[in-house]
């Protein structure tokens, strides 16, 4: 029987790239996103690759929406083998004292509460069924401090803590939980931004030992490796994929 993955934030960027990469392994996918347009676009591409895929609209900051995407996945596919817990937003990029409470609540709601709700419902299913593999999306800002992203950094450091602590509790039940910490990555959104601001791209590249940005496809390779490879003894890790960026600090 085919394997099933849930990917949140599957309608764009890293989530979409990971979905397409997992389809190469014949994995069926629940694409979860708040954007119907992006989510449906991913589903169409996945079907073109010959796997079964459904779109489930969700605001991951709402626990009932999260429960719904888990229930709908089980209804349609019957199991959840893999979970790429990835939906997130970066915020306005303003300094902390210039951000309003609403923005702080929103970032924490999506990036941290959304990830926790997802784990709460998905891990419950996985542990009941003898195990499963999860990758959470952290960030360079989850392992180092950076200006302009105080709230974002709080949520991404939180993801690292969740990843380690879940392993302490449920590794014995067959649960694998790892996180990725991508550095500057040229998602379609970032690419468009840098095309309009080439000097900012040059600055970003200069700060990375490899002098280039990562690609969504490279991150997708790591996600696919962590979710599906036979190297199952990798557990509780946060793996930096950033060209060496966080190591220069």
């Amino acid at each position, binding site marked *: 029987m085919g394997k099933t993955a849930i990917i949140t934030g599957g309608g764009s960027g890293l989530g979409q790239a990971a979905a397409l990469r997992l389809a190469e392994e014949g994995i069926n996918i629940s694409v979860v996103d708040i954007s119907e347009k992006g989510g449906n676009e991913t589903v169409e591409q996945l079907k073109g690759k010959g796997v079964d895929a459904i779109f489930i609209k969700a605001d991951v900051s709402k626990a009932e929406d999260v429960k719904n995407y888990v229930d709908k996945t089980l209804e349609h596919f019957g199991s959840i083998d893999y979970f790429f817990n990835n939906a997130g937003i970066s915020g306005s990029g303003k300094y902390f004292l210039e951000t309003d409470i609403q923005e702080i609540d929103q970032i924490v709601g999506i990036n941290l509460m959304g990830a926790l709700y997802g784990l709460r419902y998905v891990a419950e299913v996985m542990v009941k069924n003898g195990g499963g593999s999860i990758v959470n999306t952290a960030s360079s800002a989850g392992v180092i401090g950076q200006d302009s992203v105080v709230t974002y950094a709080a949520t991404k450091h939180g993801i690292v803590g969740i990843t380690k602590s879940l392993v302490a509790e449920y590794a014995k039940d067959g649960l694998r939980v790892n996180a990725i910490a991508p550095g500057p990555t040229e998602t379609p959104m970032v690419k468009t931004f840098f095309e309009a601001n080439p000097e900012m791209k040059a600055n970003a590249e200069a700060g990375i030992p490899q002098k280039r940005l990562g690609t969504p496809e490279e991150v997708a390779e790591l996600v696919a490796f962590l979710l599906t490879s036979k190297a199952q003894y990798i557990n509780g890790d946060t*793996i930096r994929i950033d060209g060496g960026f966080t*190591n220069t600090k």
Partner: protein
Amino acid sequence: MINYTDKAIIITGGGSGLGRAAALSIAKQGGKLVLVDMNKDGLEESKNEILAAAPEASVELVTANVTNEEEVKNYVQFTLDTFGKIDGFFNNAGIEGKQNPTEDYGSDEFEKVVNVNLNGVFYGMKHVLKVMKEQGFGSIVNTASVGGIRGVGNQSGYAASKHGVVGLTRNSGVEYGQFGISINAIAPGAIMTPMVEGSLRQIGGDNWEAVGTEFVSVNPMKRFGKPEEVGNLVTFLLSDAAKFINASVIPIDGGQSYKY
């Protein structure tokens, strides 16, 4: 996607344990191998095992002591003469050393362990990086250890050398990233290799298996890791699929490192 067609890979410590497991995994993906080890019989066994699993594999053997820089230069030159390039380098040869508290560790023992685990790794990086820089591509994976990230006890030489491997990895990763090169370290925990068996025998003698069971009872996954699992990780890290991972240290320890 991982693809080793026409890739030339050097593996030190290729005659046993993690080196042999990585060699087997990479050969199955079509990679061409130069296996380096002090133990000639171990190298032959690795080659036989690889050819049994992948009859078309290209496997060359070099007997060398990695503490001797001339011999390191020699295995690098041999690879260039044979395959014309070095795509990947699993810089893995190491020893565990005798277990004792610091005051009884022994200066000779310390020097011996550091010589293999740290000097040998440095010599390898020095000569391989020169080639990779000129080529404009290449990936290196150094074998650190859980003992390279935290204190385990009774292993001064091993701890110092493996922490040193982490330092070499981070330092060179910053220097060589700009030349299209990725340098990472793996930090294996309790993987059941001949070396770990040796450590358990030092503690438990004939009772080493019971000591092992006790040892992994505190591991989150409640088991030893398999050399094949580390082989899979190395195969991924040395491939083009992992090029943007650089200067990282990646634990493979069943979750043991959640505590640090």
